[in-house]
């Protein structure tokens, strides 16, 4: 079975082609929208996607050495994400499905991040810790769905880290040689001082907005060295994430942790996770950077799992869902 998957939830228009047996991944082509300045403008991104879509699809087929006739189904990320971006992927997928008479398979983007992580790391039934620019979620598979045990009450971890380093003038670029500017700056703190900044964990949730405000105020007051503020901020933010993950493990009894999303690339965060996991006798698995960011492969792979369980959607009913929460998506293949 061969599935073509389309990702277009935010900054990347990606097309992946996968097969249900090794080597699994047959094609992975991406076009990333990089705004000239400022943040992502959904409308501009969607115009860019429309221009790039035909080329990306053609290149994916070509690099796999396939034609549309070889494909058994078209998977598409219908959410969550930005409306204008999502609509490009959905429109293209509907058109391909109707024109080539192929089944259309709806995929939840967050589920796809998890499924590609499981495929590549071999994790079977992990506690999932999804840390990216757009998400901070602790989840686990229970009875047909990925249930959310914890999340952020305000900013996602990656967004928090990026905003802090940008506001204090350390970024962009946010990541240099695989190291986030916050980690770099923190490593320069000689005394490893812990300044008086707020640590906020509520139940299994984290909150970073109070920490951001207080840390920026401290830097601007000139009363502390920047590297000491970085160190404190980093230690507080990472510790809070590990703490809620540890609660998630205690609560669910899972024996592995799977880290997905861009922030999982932080080696400092990873070694803290390993220290916690060793204490509880669980394994830590991390999605490699290549598949941590948005891509079409993860959509194709999740589409393949879904298709094998009979999940399809009629093209005229394939609406985008900007706020399609992780725990609202059915995962009938999820039983370990």
């Amino acid at each position, binding site marked *: 079975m061969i599935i073509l998957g389309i990702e277009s939830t935010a900054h990347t228009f990606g097309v992946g082609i996968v097969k249900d047996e090794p080597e699994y991944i047959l094609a992975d082509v991406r076009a990333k929208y990089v705004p000239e300045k400022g943040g992502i403008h959904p409308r501009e991104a969607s115009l860019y996607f429309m221009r790039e879509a035909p080329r990306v699809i053609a290149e994916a087929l070509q690099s796999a050495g396939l034609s549309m006739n070889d494909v058994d189904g078209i998977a598409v990320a219908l959410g969550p994400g930005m409306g204008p971006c999502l609509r490009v992927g959905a429109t293209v997928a509907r058109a391909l499905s109707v024109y080539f008479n192929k089944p259309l398979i709806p995929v939840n983007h967050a589920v796809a991040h998890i499924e590609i992580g499981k495929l590549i790391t071999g994790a079977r039934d992990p506690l999932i810790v999804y840390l990216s620019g*757009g998400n901070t979620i602790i989840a686990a598979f229970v009875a047909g769905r990925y*249930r959310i045990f914890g999340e952020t009450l305000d900013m996602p971890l990656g967004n928090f880290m990026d905003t802090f380093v940008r506001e204090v003038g350390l970024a962009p670029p946010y990541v240099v040689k695989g190291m986030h500017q916050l980690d770099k700056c923190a490593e320069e703190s000689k005394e490893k001082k812990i300044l008086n900044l707020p640590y906020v964990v*509520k139940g299994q949730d984290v909150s970073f907005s109070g920490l951001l405000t207080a840390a920026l105020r401290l830097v601007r007051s000139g009363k502390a060295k920047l590297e000491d503020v970085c160190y404190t901020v980093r230690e507080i933010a990472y510790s809070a994430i590990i703490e809620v993950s540890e609660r998630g493990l*205690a609560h669910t009894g899972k024996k592995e942790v799977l880290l997905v999303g861009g922030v999982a690339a932080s080696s400092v965060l990873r070694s803290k996770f390993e220290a916690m996991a060793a204490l509880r006798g669980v394994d830590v698995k991390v999605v490699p950077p290549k598949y941590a960011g948005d891509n079409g492969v993860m959509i194709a792979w999740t589409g393949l799992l879904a298709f094998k369980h009979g999940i399809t959607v009629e093209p005229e009913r394939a609406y985008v869902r900007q706020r399609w929460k992780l725990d609202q998506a059915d995962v009938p293949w999820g039983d370990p």
Partner: protein
Amino acid sequence: MTKPTYRGGTPKIIALGAEAALIKHTFLGMPAVYKVRLPKPYRDPKLDLRLRSERTATEAKIIHDLRLAGLPVPALYYVSLSEGLIVMEYVEGDLLRDLINRRVSGYVDLVRELGKVIALMHGLGVVHGDITTSNVVVREGTPYVIDFGLAKYSNELEDVGVDVHLFIRAVESTHYDVMEEVIIAFFEGYASIAGEERVKEIKEKVREIRLRGRYVEERRQKRNK
């Protein structure tokens, strides 16, 4: 072979939670729980010490205050901040979580009672910070609330809303198959103390809180600025 005997029985580990080890023993002859917050190797040692002593102090102070106010919480026996230790009354009973999971008859009434206790607690200006069905021990039909390390004094609607949100989310992930009736019963109990108007206000706040951490378009746009 003879087992060592203590007056009052053998100390027994009852739980190794994420935060603390809980040991059942006696204190001055009374059945007691020793709750010790252990150091975490992944935390900076100074941060670790700060968090453990802050939470130990918070938990001790708040269960003491609530107990004096007449709410069903364990009595406080002893505290040592430097050791991260609290000794409190042992509440003999079952976790509300297990009673719901076993569907014992009357579990819905217990949740309604819990709603009342939480409303009374909020009325006293305390938010719990981790209301789950694992943090409620039921003794003779009364739900005792435990685990106050993340609690604080606040009358802000925001904090009350977060407290209720945490309970609802815990129910959704743990008791997903009976979550509707559990949540309804909780609010019935809550409203019987705090009134329907207040419950409406809280529900509105919870809705707002639940939209925040989510995938919000505006937030993604701000990000790379």
